[in-house]
């Protein structure tokens, strides 16, 4: 009996020594704020006051009735679909290119990766300048009609601008993961396939891609979650404009909580955004995990 007890205390001791600090940090910065955040959805707090009047489910009811929130969420879903597809397609193509035997492949890798090192806000301002000034003056000199007006002043083109910049920002990062996946496929398997008579593209299609499914799982997961939570780029590039037509869900939530001072409603919408993102990301991971194979 005593021995069992001491082994339990031992185990707890060991657990605390190794995992304690991480668990503590995780609790303090993720779990507790999250639970507290859920509590705030039941209040009509304004974000500043000490009073947090309890209002029950009222916030959830008003979120359901909040039309602009759902349309911004719809826009976000649309954005995620397009961005995830294009980012991953571009990233994979880049990975194939720079892992081939071309001169200066390391230089290209570094070059494609660099945009990811620039913060979203700065990147947004740089591209704002490009869309507003540089492209317009190019359009003016060369008389290209669709460049003569700033992309950012029409709602469809502003959305396209967001996609373009998202690709530019993320594809380098995803490329790196794909390169890791590509180099992880052993040379033996490749050679065996070639000897068996596969063409180069067949090797990629039937051997390499199935063997690096886990890279796809990771990249799609990362791009889905990041694109759902897009905020800094949205803020710096379009500020939700023109006339609010590119306001993504995260930005809408922020405005609700801090500009309209309806923290409770904003928090509720944030929770809903979280749930949707979590469900989609987890489903995606489970589906693609089940398709992963090992050599």
């Amino acid at each position, binding site marked *: 009996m005593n021995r069992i007890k001491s082994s*339990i205390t031992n*185990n*707890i001791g060991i*657990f605390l020594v190794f995992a304690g600090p991480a*668990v*503590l940090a995780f*609790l*303090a910065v993720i*779990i*507790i704020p999250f639970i507290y955040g859920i509590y705030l959805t039941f209040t009509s707090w*304004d*974000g*500043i*006051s*000490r*009073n947090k009047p309890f209002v029950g489910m009222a916030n959830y009811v008003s979120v359901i009735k909040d039309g602009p929130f759902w349309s911004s969420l719809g826009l976000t879903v649309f954005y995620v679909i397009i961005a995830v597809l294009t980012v991953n397609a571009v990233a994979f193509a880049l990975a194939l290119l720079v892992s081939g035997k071309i001169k200066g492949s390391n230089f290209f890798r570094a070059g494609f990766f660099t945009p990811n090192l620039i913060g979203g*806000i700065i990147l947004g301002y740089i591209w704002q300048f490009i869309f*507003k*000034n540089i492209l*317009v003056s190019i359009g003016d000199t060369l008389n290209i009609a669709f460049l003569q*007006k*700033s992309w*950012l*002043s029409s709602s469809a083109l502003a959305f396209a601008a967001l996609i373009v910049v998202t690709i530019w920002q993320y594809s380098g990062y995803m490329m790196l993961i794909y390169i890791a996946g590509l180099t992880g496929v052993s040379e033996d398997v490749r050679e065996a396939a070639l000897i068996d008579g596969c063409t180069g593209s067949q090797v990629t299609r039937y051997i390499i891609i199935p063997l690096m499914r886990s890279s796809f799982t990771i990249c799609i997961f990362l791009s889905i979650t990041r694109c759902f939570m897009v905020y*800094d780029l949205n*803020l710096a590039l379009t*500020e*939700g*404009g*023109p*006339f*609010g*037509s590119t306001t993504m869900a995260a930005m809408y939530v922020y*405005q609700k909580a*801090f*500009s*309209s*001072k309806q*923290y409770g409603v904003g928090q509720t919408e944030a929770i809903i955004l979280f749930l949707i993102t979590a469900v989609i990301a987890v489903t995606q991971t489970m589906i693609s995990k089940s398709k992963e194979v090992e050599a």
Partner: protein
Amino acid sequence: MKKKVLSSLLALTLAIGALSGCGNSNAGNDSAGSDGAANESAAQAGTESETGEEGQSAEEPASETAAETGADFSGVSITMLNTKSEIQPQLEAAAEEWGALTGATLEVYTIGGDSSPAKEIGSRYAANNAPTLVMGDPQDVSDFCEEYGADLSGESWAANGGTKYGIMKGDVLYSFPFCIEARGLIYNRTAIEEILGEAWDPASVTNMDDLAALFERLAQAGMELPVALNMEDWSIAGHYLTQMYEEQDGTLATTEKFMEDLKAGTVDLTENVRFNAMLETFELLMEYNSNKSDPLAADYDMNAADLAEGEVAFWFNGNWAWAEISDYIEDGTELGLMSVVQNDTTGNANVNTYLCGGATKQVMIDKECNDEQQQAAAKNFLDWLVNSEAGQNVLVTECSLVPAISTITQEATNPLARSVQQYAAEGKLFDQPSNYPGDHWATVGAIMQKYLAGEETREEFAKELQDYWTGLN
């Protein structure tokens, strides 16, 4: 075994919860520093007998410097949130200067462009670590001053503009009006006279027809599009459109009543004289807008440069725009601010001679997280700004602000500020309410951008604007 781990984790969670709970009860000790856990009443008694700051400023309101004549705040450390980031270096220098006089330390900090004052203040209060001096936008300060703000009614400056421009709740004054800003049409007189080849007096423009005639003359003389219009939501909705509420009859009471009526849905804007007159002028400005080909691509800095260099003659903005204009302007260029002139003056005869403006930054002193001594030091700092020559110098010369306190008589350092100072001295400012809905500029801004881009008629705009207000209920 697993259960044990789980339960000990739960216990840990509770322990952390309890710890953070304790944090609440001795709030402000962190920032109080030296003073430790002195309880409120003791601190109160201490401040009043030791420093006598309150009594002093009451006895001699105009005393040269309360700070120089003996107030001693040695060891007191206070903080100030500055939400006018462009004057951060000047305020830091001022804090040091004041600190050297009183022995206190004042740490001024500011926020980046990606944060808003309301969010910053909210998170500071959530952390129980609010700054002693809280500078915020009027509507923010108005929202929480009753809960967190110290009563400033007895301060030396209260009677000299404090109660006029500061935030009052009932009879209690809660904030120090940090500066006055006003908006209107900025004109470049030098450029106009050069183009027209004759002397031009802004007073000659008395209504919208005069303005249209002037635009036409400028266009014929070679300045085809003499106006710069911003596309930013805060400019068109937050500054231009709000003039419509504030000029209903020019009194704060009517403005507030008008907003209530809008919320209640009893106003038909298409029938409203001021709405129509204001938008008629806006349409005129749109017609002569130098960004006309793509109004939503207007660039703020380009507008500033165009006005400074005389590419355009008018720019709708406010005196704060000097910060950008001054980067481009040549010595000797004469600038000023004039009203957004309108044709129909029914209901308010002053619209063509007054500007809309008021105190745009309010400084509140926190009483929740800062003890009595810190509050007294903060009051002393404001007193120093207003009553000492060095402090006045900071506000007017160093920061190029238009002070709201009438005892500060130094002349403003730039032409736009001088313009506003003159309007203020003549009493020609329409007050602005401090209770605009927080999302007004952003939400209505988006609607007005459609109108600016020509994608919406005046009627559609009026309808959407009314819907915004009734949707607030």
